[in-house]
């Protein structure tokens, strides 16, 4: 069993607390109309952070769905800038600068899973010693893309880790309406590689499972499917009203297994954390977020930025459309 060191566990709690605090802050900014719809991270922190800490950020790729980017601090401070640009709806929000091995938010559910397999395959073709970890939800596992990708990965023996974050809900759809399988981990039997179910609120278990899968993958032994069982502690997104469908007592029970509470208690007992540290981390998180928001808001936006990066060179028609748009914007640049 791969156990994180005390130092690593401390760093993981920093990342978890940071993610929670920042996510809640973004949630509030949405309520004030300052950012767009967002999906809170609450309840997912141990899974995302534990996984990220088990990876080698220089070599291993992470392909998130939409709930993870805020908790990928381990991949560098640029991640938060990415998150804020994305959340304010800036075109640059799609851009994570090289060499960070993370792809941007994916909204079209499960489509990133075949990307992960292709990327993992590509790494082996280039003798690049990395693995690919792809996040997806319990709901997303019902899409054909998940199965097609899992099956392909099995055939190729590609170095990919499928991390299914089972937070019990896909918007309002509970797991028992999502599948009759014994577990999401059990689905790996369809692909011919191991599937394991772990407690996604236990950061050590996540770290261990991802480490083990990574070692396996790097040894050429192929993919692993990990189902991390957590509970979505917040609404699906800022546009959702979970009181319509989440039983209050379930949520109550889930709150008792809050991954942050759990790790914090453990670290406090071990003398590795206290209220002061907590306050410091929270403060730093908010300061970083404010700075990132400020930076995002002051990121230039050319009036025709939305036409960039579609084709390497504008088609003739697009070039004319660009000219028309610029003419509308006028010399000042932002008429609209």
């Amino acid at each position: 069993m791969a156990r994180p060191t005390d130092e690593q566990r401390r760093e993981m709690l920093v990342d978890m607390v940071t993610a929670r605090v920042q996510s809640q802050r973004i949630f509030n900014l949405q309520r004030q109309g300052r950012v767009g719809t967002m999906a809170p991270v609450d309840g997912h922190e141990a899974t995302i952070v534990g996984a990220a800490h088990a990876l080698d950020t220089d070599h291993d790729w992470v392909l998130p769905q939409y709930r993870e980017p805020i908790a990928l601090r381990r991949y560098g401070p640029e991640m938060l800038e990415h998150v804020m640009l994305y959340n304010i709806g800036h075109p640059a929000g799609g851009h994570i600068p090289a060499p960070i091995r993370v792809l941007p938010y994916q909204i079209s559910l499960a489509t990133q899973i075949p990307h992960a397999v292709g990327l993992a395959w590509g790494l082996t073709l280039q003798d690049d010693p990395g693995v690919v970890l792809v996040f997806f939800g319990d709901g997303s596992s019902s899409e054909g893309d998940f199965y097609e990708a899992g099956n392909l990965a099995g055939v190729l023996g590609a170095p990919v880790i499928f991390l299914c974050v089972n937070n019990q809900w896909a918007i309002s759809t509970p797991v028992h309406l999502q599948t009759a399988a014994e577990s999401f981990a059990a689905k790996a039997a369809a692909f011919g590689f191991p599937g394991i179910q772990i407690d996604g609120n236990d950061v050590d278990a996540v770290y261990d499972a991802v480490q083990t899968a990574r070692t396996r993958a790097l040894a050429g032994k192929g993919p692993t499917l990990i189902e991390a069982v957590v509970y979505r502690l917040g609404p699906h997104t800022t546009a959702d009203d979970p009181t319509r469908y989440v039983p209050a007592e379930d949520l109550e029970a889930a709150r008792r297994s809050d991954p942050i509470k759990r790790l914090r208690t453990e670290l406090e007992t071990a003398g590795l954390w206290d209220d002061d540290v907590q306050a410091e981390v929270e403060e730093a998180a908010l300061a970083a977020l404010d700075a990132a928001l400020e930076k995002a808001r002051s990121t230039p936006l050319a009036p025709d930025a939305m036409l960039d990066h579609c084709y390497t060179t504008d088609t003739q028609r697009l070039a004319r459309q660009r000219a028309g748009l610029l003419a509308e914007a006028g010399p000042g640049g932002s008429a609209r």
Partner: protein
Amino acid sequence: MTELNMLEAINETLHAEMARDDRVVVLGQDIAHNGGVFRATEGLLEKFGERRVVDMPLAEGAIAGASVGLAVAGLVPVAEIQFLGFAYQAMHQIAGQIARLRYRTQGRFDPAITIRAPFGGGVRTPELHSDSLEGQLANVPGLKIVVPATAADAKGLLASSIRDPDPVMFLEPLRGYRGIRDDVPDGEHLVPLGSARTARPGGDAVVIAWSHQVELACRASDRLAEEGLSVRVLDLRCLVPLDLAAIAEAVDACGRVVVTEESPRTGGFGGEVVATIVEESFWSLEAPVVRVSGFDVPYPVGMVEDRYLPDEDRIAAAVRHVLDMA
């Protein structure tokens, strides 16, 4: 008559059609216990029960594909795709199977399937939520493409769509759900599929539009009226079948035409409208038809979508342009 927004009109119609015909089954993601992410299916579960109002696993292909089987069983599926952009996940079933169920079986089975999906921009949704795919769907023979612009039409066209033995893509403007409000006839109200509607009378030029663009075209017309111009607005209401006579009538009367749509220009349904005009009314044209549309890039992110979307300014400018030409 009762004033309703489009969402209310749709919800009311779903209730009425489920009550009228017990073969109607409603299926989709989050449509039962949650009443739909926009509340379009609110109350159906409570009224009609779990057998007829079904929350589906998260797989658009399965929603569309199972609808084929339900239709073969003689039922009348009304499926929801949560956002039209995710119809891509089901295109092999929608275009490859639903559209041609009757054709493949040479008349044995009716694909009496309605697929409802919101589309179009303006509400800061993430990628693919706002995409306008109607031009692509219109190239799929067998499908009917219905694109209401008012609450009253949403009711009348949805009822007709559900009752139609042909498969219908019923595309609802996201911006119109709460943004469009008008008088809706009480009780039974059917609008036949394939009949356009004059949304504004006028004779100097005509703007041809559908879905939320109709509202913007009307605003442009109102504004141009202040400049003394009489600009007709033709609301197509259905892209397939297309009301050729209404288009010809409007073009013949006005001679100058603007076609507006949200989709990217290239390959959008606007091109089909222009080609149709050329076929039906070439000699009436006093100037080239001008297209207003989205740009030839993917639907963009929130901060810039207002720049992306054709609005009343662009429509009005296009009208002035066709009026200025030779």
